[in-house]
């Protein structure tokens, strides 16, 4: 019982951090909040190892904490250093947060209905993973800046890890491939951010 409450509380914390990410215009806090979010998810996997004794969870937890919480945060902080102002040059972040809250409330009802009809015998905490995945997509779609968009992608991947962790433990090889791919893409993002700080969407060659 206590174990379930710990996991549910951690899942809830992860979703709360995702709201902070949508409503934050400054880059550095976004990067760090992503690090915190990944750390909590890694700790959830470690907790599952403690509760179940499956070594796969421990390896996954360590990999998530070291790669996503530390390595990705470090790479992104290095990338924005000296290249950007302190915040995204977009107005109305607060109103985006309200849109996001409404969307999440709607998603919650839909997902809860879906889970109660399809996944009858599944841990209710799966909903946190699904919500986080959708929050990641929302962050990338709602925000125009390079950093929020890539954080949205990392958040989406975090949602998948959380979803997979609560639903079914995948073979470790597949999990490892997914983690390494995300790390590879972040390194590439670092290169792109260094070469091109912000986006110009009015490029004639990329229209139509």
């Amino acid at each position, binding site marked *: 019982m206590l174990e379930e409450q710990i996991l549910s509380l951690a899942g809830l914390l992860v979703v709360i951090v995702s709201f902070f990410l949508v409503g934050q215009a400054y880059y550095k806090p976004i990067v760090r909040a992503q690090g915190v979010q990944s750390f909590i998810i890694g700790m959830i996997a470690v907790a599952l190892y403690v509760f179940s004794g499956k070594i796969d969870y421990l390896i996954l937890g360590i990999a998530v904490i070291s790669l996503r919480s530390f390595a990705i945060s470090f790479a992104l902080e290095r990338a924005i250093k000296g290249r950007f102002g302190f915040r995204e040059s977009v107005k109305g972040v607060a109103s985006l947060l309200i849109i996001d809250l409404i969307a999440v409330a709607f998603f919650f009802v839909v997902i809860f209905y879906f889970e109660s*009809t*399809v*996944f009858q015998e599944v841990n209710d905490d799966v909903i946190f993973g699904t919500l986080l*995945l959708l929050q990641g*997509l929302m962050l*990338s779609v709602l925000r125009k800046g*390079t950093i929020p*968009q*890539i954080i*949205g*992608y990392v958040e*989406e*991947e975090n949602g*998948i890890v959380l*979803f*997979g962790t609560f*639903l*079914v433990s*995948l*073979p470790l*090889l*597949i999990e490892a*491939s*997914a983690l390494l*791919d995300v790390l*590879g*893409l972040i390194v*590439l*993002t670092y*290169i*792109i951010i260094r*070469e*091109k700080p912000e*986006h*110009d*969407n009015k*490029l004639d*060659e*990329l229209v*139509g």
Partner: protein
Amino acid sequence: MMSTVLMYLLFAVPLLGGASSLKWKFSSVAFSLVNVILAVLIFFNPPPVGAFFVDDVSKVFVVMNASITFIVMLYSTEYIKDGIVKEGWYYLLFMIYSDAIYGVVTINNLGLVWASLEASTALTVILVAYEKDNVTMEATWRYLVIVSMGVSIAFVSIILFYYDLHTLTLTSMIGRGEVSPITVAASLLGLLGFGTKAGIFPGYTWLPDAHTEAPATVSSSFSAVLVPSAAVVVYRIWEIAPFMTEYFLVLSGFSVLTASLMMARQKYFKRLFAYSTLENVNIGLIGLIVGQPLGALILFFTHAFGKTAAFLSSGVYMERLNTKKIEDVEKVGLSYPTSTSLFLASLAVTGTPPFGTFVGELLIFTTLFHVSVPLLIVLLTSAGIAFVSVNYHVTRMVKPREEKAYSGILGYISLASAILSLLVGLIAIGVVQ
């Protein structure tokens, strides 16, 4: 046993070629030629089902990937200079990327197929960004974000498949015929997720951008190999959940229609060919799904050579005339062999007889007549629009008001690829008869 060794060699040779091309760029050509030989051997002697799953579709795609990589490497030695990374790294990344594609079409595990497809994205980001200007970086960013997020959705489908079927081995997943809400959700997410990379609506928006801005060699490999290989993964998802046929056909049909409508108003020739890729690959996928694998494979194979010729010719135009605009080439164009190559490529990718694309499309449309007449009407209309659009624009390019002479090796490599597409078509007609 021998065939399994050949498979491991198929994966090892590009790694060696890539590593040695850091020192000597021509080694990528030599090693990719070795892979063409290995691919042909595997075609006639495929490995038994185990770690690999090499059916008729995979066999053709292995040969296709090896052949196109060889042509592109040969062209690159003359075309590629230092870009966002040193020239040697271009060859290394390209060769490892070709390995990832072998993994996508041959590995017998859906999770590792996903990992290979995601790796192909990571490996090609630098290749797309190679020319490093502002527009290129924007296109690369769109490619990275859209494809990564799409393929992440595909990973959710893999989790759901594993939860429901307790395996990710393709040969164990295919043919079960189990209908459950989770398999329905997994196959829909798989269609949307893998479909992003396969050029299926709504996630295909990255494709015209990346094709326009990547070097011609990368665009040709994307169109000829990468996008069709992702379509094979979508086909595998359909094989796992064949009861979802309508969803697959509707989305692919809609992709063909929207792509052909976009072709008419294009101002940039590489963008025009990118939309043509969407059209051809989706018709090929529909062919596989409606049970016309011969037509689909002929279409994929000849389209690969035709589209390679189209993009490699475009590369010569861009290099010599320093433009990507159709109207600029209409004023000042290029002479034989590049103009001939572009014209033949245009005929090849629009399904003109006697090119193989014509044979493939004819077989698919004939089968489709017995499956869905409304979809057949949509495809015939779209193919007609695409034919007129591509050939109209290309005719403007090959009949310029002023012509610059260029008889370098790049034009002849493009021409050879276009002629190969024609030859395969003639052989296909013989086989079908």
